[in-house]
């Protein structure tokens, strides 16, 4: 685990400031600015690497990702419904959140991989895009059944045109079209400042996570256990799947981390519209205040070892 990455320290600073109720609020527009830069940078980086490698995405991989996305919510739902004794709506909402992915966690992982010089598939940002939506759809079906009274068309439109998907895919396309040379002039902003921007982002995430922690009163024990154990389960599933479809060790690490991560942007928004009777604070607290910190502080090194282990078989 070597020494702590300073970006993680920024998260801790934000979290402490938030817990101490320090007057450190950053305006929402700064969060938008910083997260826009991150999403574009991740996409661009992936696109440039794709252009360099000339890679495509094997259909088997795509199918596996879709299976993971649609499938992972089911065990999550069952655990939450029958072990956690949550309502059907709440359990389905947790399924959507934990089946989907967190771009923030992915950004930390990307920084970590670069710092450690670990190679991985250039198309990894595409995995994020593919994994974001299916679990949310699965969560809605778990709550409503297939025939449920859901306005699927506008919902799908909104999901597929969500901020993170548009910016990631847009960045990917621009990076891929322009290639390493074409993007040279914009690299100082998007690549040179990446870690600094990530630090600011994590400062904000720390503040937000701390505020969210205030909601952790009811179901506290279940939510903490769930928020720690479920990512470990997800990571194992992700790592084994990555091995099965022949990813590189770095790629297995990435897929494990993605499966372990839980959505705190796309899933909450969609569930709020489609399954309004689910308590939004419940899933958001688990995802944002327990699982996100767990993943970036403790989880990533664990998933690294897990991936190395799984890859060695």
């Amino acid at each position, binding site marked *: 685990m070597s020494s702590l990455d300073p970006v993680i320290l920024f998260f801790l600073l934000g979290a402490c400031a938030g817990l101490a109720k320090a007057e450190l*609020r*950053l*305006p*929402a527009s700064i*969060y*938008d600015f910083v997260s826009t830069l991150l999403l574009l940078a991740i996409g661009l980086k992936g696109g440039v690497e794709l252009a360099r490698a000339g890679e495509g995405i094997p259909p088997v991989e795509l199918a596996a990702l879709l299976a993971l996305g649609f499938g992972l919510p089911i065990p999550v739902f069952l655990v939450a419904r029958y072990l956690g004794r949550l309502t059907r709506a709440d359990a389905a909402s947790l399924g959507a959140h934990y089946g989907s992915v967190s771009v923030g966690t992915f950004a930390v992982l990307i920084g970590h991989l670069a710092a450690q010089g670990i190679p991985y598939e250039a198309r990894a940002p595409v995995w994020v895009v593919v994994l974001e939506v299916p679990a949310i759809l699965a969560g809605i079906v778990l709550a409503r059944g297939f025939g449920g009274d859901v306005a699927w068309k506008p919902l799908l439109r909104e999901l597929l045109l969500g901020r993170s998907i548009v910016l990631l895919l847009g960045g990917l396309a621009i990076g891929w079209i322009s290639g390493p040379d074409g993007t040279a002039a914009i690299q100082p902003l998007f690549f040179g400042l990446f870690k600094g921007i990530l630090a600011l982002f994590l400062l904000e995430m720390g*503040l*937000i996570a701390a*505020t969210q922690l205030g*909601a952790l009163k009811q179901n506290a024990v279940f939510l903490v256990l769930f928020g720690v154990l479920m990512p470990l389960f997800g990571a194992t599933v992700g790592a084994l799947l990555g091995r099965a479809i022949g990813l590189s060790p770095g790629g297995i690490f990435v897929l494990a981390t993605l499966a372990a991560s839980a959505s705190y*942007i796309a899933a*909450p*928004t969609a569930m*709020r*519209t489609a399954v*309004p*009777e689910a308590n939004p*604070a419940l899933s958001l607290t688990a995802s944002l205040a327990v699982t996100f910190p767990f993943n970036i502080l403790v989880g990533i090194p664990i998933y690294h070892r897990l991936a190395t282990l799984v890859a060695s078989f």
Partner: protein
Amino acid sequence: MVTIVTESALERTLVAELESLGVRGFTITDARGKGSRGLRQSDWAQEGNIRVEVICDPAVADRIAARVREKFYDHYAMILFMQDVSVLRSDKF
């Protein structure tokens, strides 16, 4: 005038609903607040409130209140209140 304070996330849905009720105009400001569903800060765009004002005749106002109560009131952080206002060039509304 009908004023609704509710979750920012509901903006699109609520506007569509209002328009389906024949509302011709509305004014929205960003807000934060506290109510029965706890504190809603605007630090994080997703978590804030909006404050929607609609000037309309009493009949439409009642239809809005009924629709909002039926569709949103149970599951969303939301309040709705009405006031009498006198408008300039009332044919506009």
